[in-house]
Every structure is written in structure tokens, then in C-alpha cells.
């Protein structure tokens, strides 16, 4: 009996101790605890050491860990009065909880105009506009600035990189059939036909993944309907003939067997493994996955898909690794804005570039190695079909979801033609 009591007591003691432990820790970081909420604390902040709590993207921890460790060190060296308490604690669930419980960290990761979430947070007064902190945007192109804006006000740090979907190819297989990276659409089709004629599966595509089956159309779209995508942003109608042509091209790749026979049953990972194991000559994949291919011992080349007009297009898509917003509940908005400002700086961007090698959109960043230079070998940045469709969406009509979950699967399974796909799209666009 005494033994059991003892065990219970020990257990209770453990819990109390555990609770006590964490209390102690909280006191070390005054910014995290409620005690810091007194006005005196924030006035004294300029003189005393301020601790900023910052949340990073948990899903991309493996990629962001190294650059952010260095960024935070560099920032703290510059601002000895600010301590960065950086945690990879943010995913959709923890962010939702923090938003609703008013426990947001001082600064946290946001996706800018890529999702409506930042807009909703700005509208609900959860994050603050940063205009008064004068973040220098003169180095950045318009797309990067637009990324941070909600109703004309800046809400996040500026993205220094962008991502697009491109084609990775196996140079050894290309050499075997004396092929070269194609420069025009017709060249591209000829390359594909040569490979098929020689019994090589030209392109690995994961038909079983929501986005893996989507990348081909994102790459094709600028060449076929760039104008229409701009029109969608402006609320103008699309040209049915051009749209049908795009959908037909997407389906033609299936019909002609460019993806191999079983691609519908493969997911993105299977497609990537097929390519890295030399079973296919090419793969549609994003610049963000370059590390995967870089780490293989293969001889891999990269090119942007050539369009029918002979232009090699990249697609718009800001990289959100370094885009952070400041919470309205922050007790140190000035210092948090300082951190966000630093994330937009060349110094921080160069740290990220040296660690990860992304495609810079700001000219003064020194690209990491030849590969990034290869990434930059496109002629023009076209629109992103998903974002263009999203721009035309309203509460009733969701053409971007329809594209992913209805049009592409059906085209891929050869259930509809390009013309039918256009009709389905038009019906959705007509919903008000």
C-alpha cells in the first residue's frame, strides 16, 4: 500500500516539477510571459534586452534550419539589444490556435499574396502594416512588392527569390540519342518523339498526386494563354480557342505516351525515383526540389519549357522562405519590424542563397554556382495558371480547385477532350 502511494506521490511531484521547470524558463524570456505586458516593460525595452519570439515554418524546417540559424546570428550581432527566440513551431493548426487565442509570436511566417490568409489576417487586424518602418523596396521588382501588399499597405518582408516549375533532364540519356536541350516547342516535341521511338519513357509524372499532375500545365500555360491569364486578373473573359489548345496539348502528352504507361498510378515520389534511377529521360519539377537532384551523382541538366512562340517561360511564384509578418499583439513591434526589415535585406538573402541556392529575383544577389545560373536561363516570366484562376475566383466559383480536382484528372484519364474541359471551365467562371 505504501509502495503505491509512493508511486502516486512521485508522479504528482514529477508533474509539479515539470510545470515549475517551464515557469522558470518563461521568466528567462520575459517577452513570452504575461508579466512583460506592463507598460513600463515596453518603455524600458529600448534600453533593456528585448526577446522576440519568431515562428518558422515547421513543414520546411529541414530546408530553413541552416539559413535561419545564420540569419538570426547575424541579426543579433547587429542588434545586441534584441534576442531572437526562433522556433519551428508553426503549421496550419498551431497558427490557427495562436490567431484565435491571441497568442501569436512577435513575428511569424506568412505566404503573402499566394494565399488569401495574409489578407484575412490583415483585415482582422491580426498583423500590422509595416509602412511606417520604411522597409526599402527599391531593389525589388513589382511582383515582389505586390506579394507583400494588402490594400496598398505592406504586411510582410519582401521575397528575394522565386520558384518556378521547369524540366530536369538526364544528360547521359540525351547524349545516347544525340539530343540536346530543346529551344523551341517543336524541338521539344521532336525530342519527345525520338525518345518514345527508342523505347525510353520521356518524362516522369506522378499522375496520382494533386500537384504532381498539375506541374505540366503550369509550365505549358504561359506559352499558350499568357494573355488570357492577364485578362483573368482584370476580370476579362478568356479566349476559348486558345484555352482548348492548351488543354489539348496537356492531353496530347498523355495520348502520345510521353509519360509512360503507368504514370496514373504513380505519385510524385515514385516519379522522382524513376527519374533519379535513370528510368526516364526527364521530369517536370520545381526549382525548389533542385537539392534532390543535386545530391544524386547523376549528370543532370535543366531547362525552362520552350513555348510555341519560341520563348522560354518561367512562371511567376515568389519563394516564401523569408517572408514574415509582425503580429498586432507584439509588445515590441519596432524590434519585430527591424527583424522583418533584415529578412528583406541583401545580407539575409545572400545567406539563404549560399545555403540553399534559390533563384534570385533581385539582381544584386550572387547566385550560388552554375545551377542557379541555369535556372535563370529563361526568356520571360509568365503568369502562374493557378494564381490567375484564383484571381477569377469568388465564393461560388473556384476555377483553380476545379482545374486541380476535376479538369486535369479527367484529361489525364482521357475522359474529356480539350474542348470539353474548356466548357467545364467556362461554366465555373460564369458562376457568380
Amino acid at each position: 500500500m505504501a509502495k503505491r502511494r509512493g508511486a502516486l506521490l512521485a508522479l504528482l511531484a514529477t508533474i509539479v516539477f515539470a510545470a515549475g521547470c517551464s515557469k522558470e524558463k518563461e521568466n528567462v524570456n520575459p517577452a513570452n510571459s504575461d508579466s512583460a505586458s506592463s507598460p513600463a516593460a515596453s518603455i524600458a525595452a529600448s534600453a533593456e534586452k528585448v526577446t522576440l519570439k519568431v515562428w518558422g515554418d515547421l513543414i520546411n524546417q529541414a530546408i530553413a534550419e541552416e539559413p535561419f540559424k545564420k540569419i538570426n546570428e547575424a541579426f543579433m550581432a547587429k542588434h545586441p539589444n534584441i534576442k531572437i527566440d526562433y522556433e519551428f513551431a508553426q503549421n496550419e493548426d498551431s497558427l490557427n490556435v495562436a490567431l484565435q487565442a491571441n497568442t501569436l509570436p512577435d513575428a511569424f511566417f506568412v505566404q503573402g499574396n499566394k494565399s488569401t490568409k495574409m489578407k484575412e489576417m490583415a483585415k482582422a487586424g491580426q498583423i500590422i502594416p509595416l509602412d511606417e518602418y520604411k522597409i526599402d523596396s527599391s531593389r525589388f521588382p513589382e511582383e515582389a512588392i505586390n506579394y507583400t501588399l494588402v490594400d496598398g499597405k505592406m504586411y510582410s518582408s519582401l521575397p528575394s527569390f522565386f520558384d518556378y516549375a521547369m524540366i530536369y533532364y538526364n544528360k547521359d540519356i540525351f547524349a545516347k540519342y544525340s539530343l540536346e536541350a530543346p529551344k523551341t516547342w517543336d524541338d521539344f516535341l521532336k525530342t519527345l518523339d525520338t525518345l518514345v521511338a527508342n523505347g525510353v519513357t520521356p518524362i516522369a509524372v506522378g499522375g496520382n498526386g494533386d500537384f504532381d499532375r498539375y506541374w505540366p500545365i503550369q509550365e505549358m500555360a504561359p506559352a499558350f494563354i499568357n494573355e488570357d491569364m492577364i485578362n483573368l486578373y482584370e476580370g476579362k473573359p478568356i479566349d476559348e480557342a486558345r484555352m482548348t489548345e492548351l488543354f489539348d496539348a496537356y492531353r496530347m502528352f498523355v495520348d502520345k505516351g510521353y509519360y509512360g504507361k503507368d504514370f496514373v498510378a504513380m505519385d510524385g515520389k515514385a516519379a522522382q525515383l524513376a527519374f533519379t534511377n535513370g528510368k526516364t529521360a526527364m521530369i517536370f519539377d520545381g526549382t525548389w526540389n533542385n537539392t534532390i537532384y543535386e545530391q544524386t551523382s547523376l549528370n543532370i541538366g535543366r531547362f525552362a519549357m520552350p513555348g510555341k512562340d519560341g520563348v522560354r517561360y518561367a512562371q511567376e511564384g515568389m519563394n516564401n522562405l523569408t517572408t514574415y509578418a509582425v503580429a498586432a499583439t507584439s509588445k515590441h513591434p519596432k524590434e519585430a519590424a527591424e527583424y522583418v526589415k533584415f529578412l528583406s535585406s541583401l545580407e539575409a538573402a545572400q545567406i539563404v542563397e549560399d545555403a540553399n541556392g534559390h533563384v534570385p529575383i533581385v539582381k544584386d544577389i550572387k547566385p550560388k554556382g552554375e545551377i542557379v545560373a541555369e535556372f535563370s536561363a529563361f526568356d520571360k516570366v509568365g503568369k502562374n495558371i493557378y494564381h490567375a484562376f484564383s484571381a477569377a475566383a469568388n465564393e461560388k466559383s473556384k476555377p483553380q480547385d476545379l482545374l486541380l480536382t476535376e479538369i486535369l484528372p479527367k484529361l489525364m484519364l482521357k475522359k474529356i477532350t480539350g474542348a470539353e474541359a474548356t466548357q467545364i471551365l467556362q461554366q465555373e467562371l460564369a458562376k457568380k
Partner: protein
Amino acid sequence: MSFLAKRPFLLFLLPGFIIYSLFVVYPIVAAASISFFRWNGIGPKTFVGLDNYIELFTSSEMMSQFSNALLNSLRIFVLTVLILIPLQIIAAYLIYNQVKGYKFFRVAVFSPQFISTPVIVFIFMLLLDSNVGVFNKLLEWIGLGEYVRPWLGLPGYGMNIVWLMMSWSGFGVGMIFFLGAMKMISKESLEAGYLDGAGFWKRLFSIILPQMKITILNMILITYIVSMTVFDFNYILGGVSGGVDHDVDVMALLFYRIAFGESRNPLGGNISENSMGLGSTVACVLFLLIFVMSMLQVWLTYRRREEV
């Protein structure tokens, strides 16, 4: 006699009841009330009464997704009850009888539990892939090269594949409960069976199973609940939309898609104006589906106990 002395069960009930009510029931009730609001999880909430329920049951698009997900969930339930549970009972019986190698079985059968679902799916892909999969290499090797397929994603078989992987990894859970239940059966009744000359299998059917009826019923209920709330495998195999044509869509995935839908979208994506409201509505309907079954179960158990 004091109030408590007359009702000794209250002392046993209270600690669990309090902590359970506080940390399990209260949050559920609070969250369920969101189903009466229109809310995107960020901005202000508007009270809309039963509108979300009406929307769910009158929109043909929502209903078709809902019934598809429900059928897929039920398929897991039926397959598990008809195939897996009998196998688990037999396996538990073998280990109970300490057949040769039972210690090895015990560990082997339970170990898949400890590996996280993405890794399980990835390993299965390495086994079943058409290009690099061990299984397909085996087929080629024995001259069945024409049957090489990416088995993991075969269109039309999605749910069966999900079920197979779930069963493989979850086999030990049910088995361990059946084993525990068998261990509770009195030696006397088994010895009586021996003396009657009942064979190995006859003892299982005539002595052990009748004494495990309620455990089996309970496991069936848990299976039902698990099949209604299964998420991981379907999400990893089919993404947030539950595969091509929603062929691996299930109830929990439907809830997730509506409530948090676009969160894992690599392109960002939009949040719907009523994501949390409608998501909670789906969760409440899901709750009712489970609740009705649980009532039935408790009623059945109660009747059995009265019979004994």
C-alpha cells in the same frame, strides 16, 4: 450511512470523470458550437443557426462528396470486421497457446505500430514501385514481367490498398486486446474443455469465443470509430482531395479538406469564407454517425450482461 458510503462508485468515478470532462468533453462541446456559425477561422463569427447543416445536405456537390467518403469509410469497416478481426483472433489464440515461435510473432506483429505513417507508405512504395520496387523485380525474376505495376496507386483499388496497409500496421493492436481477453478466461473452463476431449479449434469456438463476445463487440465498435476517423494513409496516398476522382476520400479527410483545405497547398491557395463553420458541421455529422452506433453497442452489451 453517509452519502458517499452508500454510493462507493462515486469515489472511483470522480477523478476520471472530472479530468475527462474538463479536457475532453468541454473542448468538444465548445468546438461543436462553431457549426452554428459562419466563420473562416480568422475574422469575426456570424451566427447562422442550422444553415451549415442545410448547406451540407442540400448541395448536391457536398452530398456526393459526403456519401463517397462515407462509403469508403464503411468499406474499411466492413473489410476489417470480416477479414482482419477473425485473423487477429486466430493469431491471438496461437500466441495464447504458445505455439512454436510465439515470442517472435508477438514482437513482429506489433512492431509496425511504431513507425510513422509517411515512412510506412514510403517503404511500401520502395517495395511496390514499378521501377525500383522489390516486388516487381521479383515478378520479373520469376518470369511474370508483364504483371509489373506501380501497385500502390492502382486506380480503382485505392481503398483496398489503404486498407491493406492499415491492417498490416494495425494488426497487433486488436490482437493484443484479444490476447489480454483470452488471458482473463478461467483455467477451469478450459480444463473442462480438455476433459471433454474438445480439439484445438473446438476449444476456441465453444469455450473461448463465447466468453469474449463483449470484447469482440467492443473491438467492432472501435473499428467503426477508427474507420470513420482514419486519415493518415488516405492523406498521404491521395493528397487533400483524396486521390483521382476522390477514390481514397474518407470522412476525416473530408472534414480536413473543408476546415483546413488549402493549408498544405504548395501554391498558397485561398481559404474559404466559411471553412471552420462548415468543417465543424461535417465533424458534428461524423460525430452523430459514430454516436448512434455507440448507443447501439452499449445497448447490445447491456443486454448480454443481463443474460449472463
